[in-house]
């Protein structure tokens, strides 16, 4: 695992599988919260992948059970006002949550990293221009920007993904730029430049691996933010639209029933909270592990 900020310092001879495993176990022992949240995330991912097989009912099928029935053995999470099985809908929502967050985060990281690499490597005027652009993007609250974009473009999955990608873009670009600025002064990069290696090659082979760690931290934190933001967008009617199911949408449509059928609010809220918590704790754990300044502290 070559996660160190400076590849040279952390370099070890070709790590074996056994070494990797031992390292992982050691990390987990040192950081049980991180391990638990990683396990949680793997579980969520598994649910998302196996959703069609796990869900006891079709999540959109009407009148599967009586409407607004309490959690019971037949309907572990109860049913909603259209008689749909809530457990199946939560499971379907897991899939949506992961698809939406990973797609928008990937998009944001891709564009953000590219901007950051260019900005940090070329510096000068390009850097200045890009930085001002990112400054202005960072000056608008991401939620407001996403709402404005979706409101303007109209509700729809792709438009939503685009709007949510904006959440991450400035943070990714900033992080990458910082890492590039420091990595660019490293001896091995200087050397590569001296022998006339093409810029793209240097960027991809020598600089990019150095920014992976900070990017992953940014990503873990932002996945949570994206899920929360989708819920906020759903609240104003701009989130995921039926027949696609999302936690935020379920929560938003459950508002009138929160008193007579509190489980309609509790389960989506729980699903959102658990997922966001898991990603946040994982992010914190990774930060603890990778940030050398914190290493070795008591």
């Amino acid at each position, binding site marked *: 695992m070559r996660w160190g900020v400076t590849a040279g310092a952390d370099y070890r001879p070709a790590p074996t599988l056994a070494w990797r495993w031992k390292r992982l176990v050691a990390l987990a022992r040192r950081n049980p919260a991180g391990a638990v949240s990683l396990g949680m995330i793997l579980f969520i991912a598994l649910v998302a992948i196996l959703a069609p097989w796990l869900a006891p009912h079709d999540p959109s099928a009407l009148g599967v059970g009586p409407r*607004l*029935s309490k959690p019971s053995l037949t309907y572990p999470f109860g049913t909603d*006002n259209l008689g749909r099985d809530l457990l199946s809908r939560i499971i379907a929502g897991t899939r949506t949550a992961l698809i939406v967050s990973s797609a928008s985060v990937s998009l944001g990281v891709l564009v953000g990293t590219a901007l950051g690499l260019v900005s940090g490597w070329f510096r000068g005027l390009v850097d200045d221009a890009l930085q001002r652009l990112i400054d202005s993007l960072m000056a608008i609250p991401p939620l407001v920007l996403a709402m404005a974009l979706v409101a303007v473009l109209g509700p729809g999955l792709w438009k939503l993904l685009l709007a949510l990608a904006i959440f991450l873009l400035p943070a990714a670009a900033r992080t990458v730029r910082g890492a590039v600025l420091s990595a660019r002064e490293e001896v091995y990069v200087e050397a590569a430049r001296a022998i006339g290696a093409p810029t793209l090659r240097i960027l991809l082979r020598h600089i990019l691996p150095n920014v992976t760690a900070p990017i992953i931290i940014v990503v873990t934190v932002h996945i949570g933010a994206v899920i929360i933001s989708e819920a906020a967008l759903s609240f104003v009617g701009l989130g995921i639209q039926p*027949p696609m199911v999302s936690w935020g949408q379920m929560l938003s449509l459950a508002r009138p029933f929160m*008193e*007579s*059928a509190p489980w309609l609010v509790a389960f989506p809220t729980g699903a959102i909270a658990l997922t966001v918590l898991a990603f946040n704790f994982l992010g914190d754990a990774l930060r603890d592990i990778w940030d050398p300044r914190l290493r070795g502290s008591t």
Partner: protein
Amino acid sequence: MARFVRPAGFVWVPLLFLLVAGACRPAQAPTPTPTPPPTPTAPAQPAPTPIAPTPTPVLTLPGLGAPTPTPAPQATPVGADIVPYAQVYSANPPKRFTEAEVRRGGTFVTDFSGDPPHFDPDLTTSYFMLGAVGPVYSRLLRPVWGAMANPYAPEIVPDLAERWEASSDGLTYTFSLRKDVTWQETPYYDFPEVEGKPFTCDDARFSLERDAKNATAFLVASVETITCLDAYTLRVTLKRRDPGFLPNLASSYAYIIPKALVEKVGDLRQVALGTGPFLLKEYKPKTSITYERNPKYFVTGVPYLDTYRIVIIPEESTQVAAFRAGQIHYTGTNLPSVVRDILRTHPKTVVHRFHIPAASFHIAFRLDKAPWNNADVRRAISMAINREEMNRLVYGGEGQTYNIGVPWPSAFDTLPPPEAFGPYYKYNPQGAKDLLAKAGFGAGLTADYVYYAYGDDRIQQSEMIQQYLAQIGVKISVQRLDYGVWTQQYLGQQWKDLALGFTVPAGGMALGYDWTYELMKCKASKNTWFICDPELDALLEKTVTETDPLKLKQVYRQIWEREVNQVYRAYIAQEVRYSLWHPWVRNTQGWTGYRFDQFTYGGSHVATVWLDDPAKYR
């Protein structure tokens, strides 16, 4: 008096018993049991009921007990907490009261979910604007509101016009105006050229002429000339007979505004000064609108209140909480479960349940384009919709299952039974498939479907429609639009295949004419659907010329039958509206139906509301 949905006698006799038993039942402990699934027969089967108001409560809302019966008249009542055309559920039996019992003063607070864009009654037909200016202005005529008002056959009474007469050909109307009316004098404005000055025919003429140039032009569409014979006599001549003319003048779009003020300030966007019962005291955007009693209101004795306030609360769950906390006296909903939640903690709340005489929401087709110009395709779509299930799932079985855009009272004496809607409103997926095959679409059909989420129920209905249509091989791609694009596409007639349409009546009232002539006639101003049917046009012309009420009813019956046979619009199950009141708010009947019967949009009926001592109701 409720005349909509009525179980057979063997049901309501035990209900009356329940009512007696339930009237003094103590508040139930909170038991959050889910609603039991209604039995298949639960969607109420309407049965013939006479139109004449007879005090017979006929329907229960599960969990609410039976509605409270209307008490017999007593000596010289000035009003009553009775809403004969809605069901009333209340632990405090509605009472008639005399002038002496009225408790004057106090602040009455209701909610709005949004702000009026401005206060000019002619520049938009926005619901919030109409509600906000209503207490300030008067009209020439108004419909009767109060205990005996019939929303289906509104009786028109004087407001600013003392009396009026129509020529025998129905083309000339002469109005004699009140001579004792002055424009409001308020400490909140400084317009000496208007305040306290008498209202004259000039103002009335100016108002109608201004209507013609603005958003309210439909009110005076048939008008040819408007003249003042003297300071207090207005004459209007029409180009053609227009059964909608007087009802339009009585609707809450037709406010009379002060000519001198408009001439001074240009438009009335930022000022409201009329002849109505309340003075606009303060408007705090996104917060509240406060009105104060107009001591010089031309109707003596009212308003009873000192202050009326509308608090603007966008979120519905906050509205409910504010109602519970006593911050607002009124709130509305279309979800029976919310009503039940409130009754559990506030069992003395007065509930008015109000049916809509004509339906609004329907699947709209592009009738000018294939395949939607084929009646069999439309019939198939309509037959694929399980309206009973939709009512049961979306509205807990307490909404309206069958209803179309022609107000039933104009065509029927009693609420029409499901059979009156013909074979194409019956859920019949196999029949739908057969019809599609007959039309040449046996292999299926794909279509676009657009909607605007007027409420959560529209989102869920759209989802259901998608599933129902998939069952007969019609795949629709559902797209939710935001309001701007929606109005552009729907009212601008630019949607592609299907839309979750709504019907906007041409005038202000639930009259047959308002819902049909300008809406269904070929190329008429409000015909959004491209309906163009010579047979229908001939019938619609008859509604203008026919003066015999019985024959008129037969014409509307034919229009009804044409509509359900051709399925120009496939109406779906829709909500019933509930108004909720704290019990000490008295004489509120003018409000009920407030969202759908647009003649109560305005709100000058606030004048007769009064607040009793809350201690009496605890």
